[in-house]
């Protein structure tokens, strides 16, 4: 990490206070979005002023403005990526001093006062958001206008504006401590993504946008209801006047000593964890509300995360959105929603003293998602929709990994006898694999969508792309192999770790076909069968797209051999970088990232962490 910067510069950058760094990271996309508003409307004003006399001038001006805005967005995405790496480095230094998390209360952002919570899990997701956004903003620099219609919503400046605001809302999600503000941030992502799904201005795209809006809005309401139940758990606890001195101490820390009015932090995740770890929710009625809350959260945020059976918006939404937005929707948005589920998962496990209930719920949801994806990947004719169903599949794998990792969790940092020589708790292996899979899938899926976005620049009905765009198509083929879990790519690595962790748990639990082991073995069998079928499905699509399948008639529109499209360096370089990234991560996980993931696992499994 140090070799990326000269040492003096690094020392200077590391002096920047953490709260300034975080606030700066939030202000940058906000200011870019704000600055973009006049650019979005500039063309409309020009046209209005000139009354359609000089369209070519307006087009040139708008093209210049759009490209400038795109470059600006990309430039500041680079700055944000560097800042997130700096944040990572600062967190490493803090963690090396034995501190697992930091709370930064009452930080000003615009007119709001926010409580930030920084731990390994949030730093990991911030890195994820900024890496994928960087690649998406690069691809969007010269994004063309929609083919149908020419209102302000179908022009590139609006796309750049949405990308910036979308970036802001997704960065807010891992930073905030308050669960209601977390909900607001996830709800705001709907605002800035739903309208861009209809960017192409066709009947199908607007129908997809409508479906996305309705289904995710319904889900988000249920997520808020789940959060309300958690608030009621605290309320019920206060009303019951607990006699346990630890619980009393925590409750009093959340109340103003003079007025006795609860402080703002009542709905902060760290405050709720403090209550949970002293056993405040270990008995009814608090326990009942915590369980109910988790169920509504899985359904509510699971809708946004694209988990089955709430996934019906996924293929249409990802399929119709412009390529950079599809990359963000698939690579980051669904992961941010899953981040919210992970926070509630941890809280519920500590509250109940066991992860069996929550892990069983997630196991069912994960398997259902995985199995639901298979027939559609094989049969759906549209490539972008197939990629969207792959998101469903991989979210199922991630949820499965988390569930299996949690099944053996007992609330204590203990190790089964057969694994006494293992350096890490066996429960954390599958969890590690699941967290790694989040990044690997985000990178690979972004690669696929951006590659396909490049192909769509030359036409929607293109086939035999390997002969017309050899570089992009070659990357697409390799990305496709990565997506279905072929070695030596990163998805294979994370899936392997999940399987390894699962088999370790079976060994630890003993071979009990009707118990925990049986469930894990059954899940693994279905997992292997599903991924094999998915492999067949995607290979078929890739062959059709890139090789122009031999039994198909020739393209009726052309009688001459197809022309090779000259691929520009700025179109292909980001794709090559992404490919290199997923290749490197498939061979070896860099140790800083591995340490970050291990710390994130400790956060989720509540190992060696105590909240005040």
């Amino acid at each position, binding site marked *: 990490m140090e070799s990326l910067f000269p040492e003096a510069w690094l020392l200077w950058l590391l002096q920047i206070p953490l709260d300034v760094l975080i606030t700066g990271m939030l202000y940058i996309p906000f200011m870019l979005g704000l600055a973009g508003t006049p650019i979005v409307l500039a063309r409309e004003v020009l046209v209005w002023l000139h009354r359609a006399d000089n369209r070519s001038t307006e087009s040139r001006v708008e093209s210049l403005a759009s490209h400038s805005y795109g470059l600006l967005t990309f430039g500041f995405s680079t700055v944000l990526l560097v800042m997130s790496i700096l944040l990572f480095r600062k967190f490493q230094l803090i963690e090396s001093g034995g501190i697992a998390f930091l709370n930064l209360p009452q930080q000003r952002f615009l007119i709001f006062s926010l409580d930030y919570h920084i731990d390994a899990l949030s730093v990991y997701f911030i890195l994820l958001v900024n890496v994928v956004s960087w690649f998406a903003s690069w691809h969007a620099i010269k994004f063309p206008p929609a083919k*149908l219609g020419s209102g302000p919503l179908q022009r590139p400046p609006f796309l750049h504006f949405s990308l910036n605001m979308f970036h802001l809302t997704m960065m807010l999600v891992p930073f905030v401590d308050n669960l209601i503000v977390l909900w607001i941030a996830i709800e705001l992502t709907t605002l800035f993504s739903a309208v861009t799904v209809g960017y192409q201005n066709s009947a199908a795209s607007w129908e997809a946008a409508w479906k996305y809006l*309705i289904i995710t809005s319904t889900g988000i309401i249920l997520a808020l209801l789940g959060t309300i139940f958690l608030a009621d758990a605290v309320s019920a606890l206060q009303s019951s006047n607990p006699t346990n001195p630890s619980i009393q101490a925590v409750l009093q820390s959340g109340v103003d000593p003079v007025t006795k009015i609860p402080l703002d932090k009542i709905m902060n995740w760290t405050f709720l964890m403090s209550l949970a770890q002293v056993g405040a929710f270990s008995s009814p009625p608090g326990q009942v509300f915590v369980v109910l809350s988790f169920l509504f959260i899985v359904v509510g945020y699971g809708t946004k995360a694209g988990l089955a059976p709430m996934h019906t918006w996924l293929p249409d939404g990802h399929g119709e959105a412009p390529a950079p937005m599809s990359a963000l929707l698939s690579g980051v948005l669904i992961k941010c929603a899953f981040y919210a589920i992970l926070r509630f998962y941890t809280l519920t496990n500590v509250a109940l003293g066991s992860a069996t209930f929550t892990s069983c719920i997630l196991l069912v949801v994960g398997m259902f998602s995985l199995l639901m994806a298979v027939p559609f990947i094989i049969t759906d004719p549209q490539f972008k929709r197939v990629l969207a169903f792959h998101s469903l599949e991989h979210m199922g794998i991630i949820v499965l990994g988390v569930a299996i990792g949690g099944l053996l969790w007992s609330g204590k940092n203990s190790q089964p006898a057969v694994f006494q020589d293992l350096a890490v708790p066996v429960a954390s292996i599958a969890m590690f694999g699941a967290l790694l899979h989040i990044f690997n899938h985000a990178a690979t899926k972004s690669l696929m969508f951006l590659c396909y976005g490049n192909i769509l620049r030359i036409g929607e009905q293109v086939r035999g792309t390997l002969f017309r765009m050899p570089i992009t198509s070659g990357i697409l083929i390799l990305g496709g192999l990565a997506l279905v879990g072929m070695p030596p790519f990163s998805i294979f690595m994370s899936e392997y770790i999940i399987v390894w962790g699962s088999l370790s748990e079976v060994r630890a639990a003993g071979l009990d076909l009707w118990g925990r082991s049986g469930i894990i073995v059954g899940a693994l069998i279905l997992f292997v069968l599903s991924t094999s079928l998915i492999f067949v499905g995607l290979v078929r699509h890739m062959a059709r797209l890139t090789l122009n399948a031999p039994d198909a008639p020739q393209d009726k529109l052309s009688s001459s051999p197809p022309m090779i499209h000259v691929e520009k360096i700025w179109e292909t370089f980001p794709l090559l970088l992404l490919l290199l990234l997923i290749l490197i991560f498939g061979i070896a996980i860099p140790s800083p990232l591995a340490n970050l993931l291990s710390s994130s696992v400790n956060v989720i499994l509540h190992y060696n962490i105590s909240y005040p």
Partner: protein
Amino acid sequence: MPDQISTLLNQIGALLEPIRATSEPIVIVLEFFLVATTLAATTRQTIQETIGWYKLQCIILAVATALTAWIRNNGAITPLLVSIFVLPMVLMVVIENLLAAATMYSEPADLPGSRTGFQTRLSDATMDSEPVDLPGARTRYRILLSASDLQRIHRIWTAASKPAQSARRDLFYFFALVGIAFLIAYSIISGNDSVALDKKIGLGVSLVLHLVGLYNTVTKGDIVAQIIGLLIMDHGLYLAVVKIVAIPVPASYFVTALYFYTLITLVILFLMIPQVCGHAKTIDLDIIAKNSELTELQKAGSRPELSKGEA
């Protein structure tokens, strides 16, 4: 808060103090009226009736939640209480006009004499090409509607309203969902004192609004009904926040969150519905879905290698 406003609110609170003791039974009665308006909105014959019942529900919700917050706050009237009252009332006022403005684009906008009302030069200037898949569809952002516009909207809404048969199905599912909601509420909350009973009824009614709103969103065949279903679910949340979350500070966070949610939903609806209806020239969801399938099939049909067998 300025002192004058604070003094005024205190004076109003003092004036209303005598009725505070009788307010709790009034709130319970109002909650059952919420259930009744939900039933009416679900089994309605026409979209105009649904909107009418929804507006009545807004008024009842505003009064019930404001009374509850007032009782819980020991008779003091605070800005939070006022904000609790304001949101449903604002929705009651704007919803019909917003829905009318948005769904008006389902008819061709360039019939002779149809260009009435206020149209901005900006929107005229921006549309320089027609969507290829449905010629003649234009999207214009109108703000003020004339009487003839409203009449046209009511004709569209009447045409899209469902037949009487499904009202019986709706009734059956409604009562089933009410049963489920109150079963959950009574299972979760223990105790038989007045506070527990109040909470059980509040949670039960909130869950009724959620479940029935979800039912409307999922089963109804037009865009307006889906939106009303979402907004009914929103009412359920609103009631849950005020009745169940007894702590003032998180309640204010939740109310803020609901304001955000309502604002975001309305913004997106105002941007999105004209586009959806403008392309399909209808608010019927089945027709909208078929149109988009047709477009996709037409695209797929122009690809030489995609035949029926392969699909």
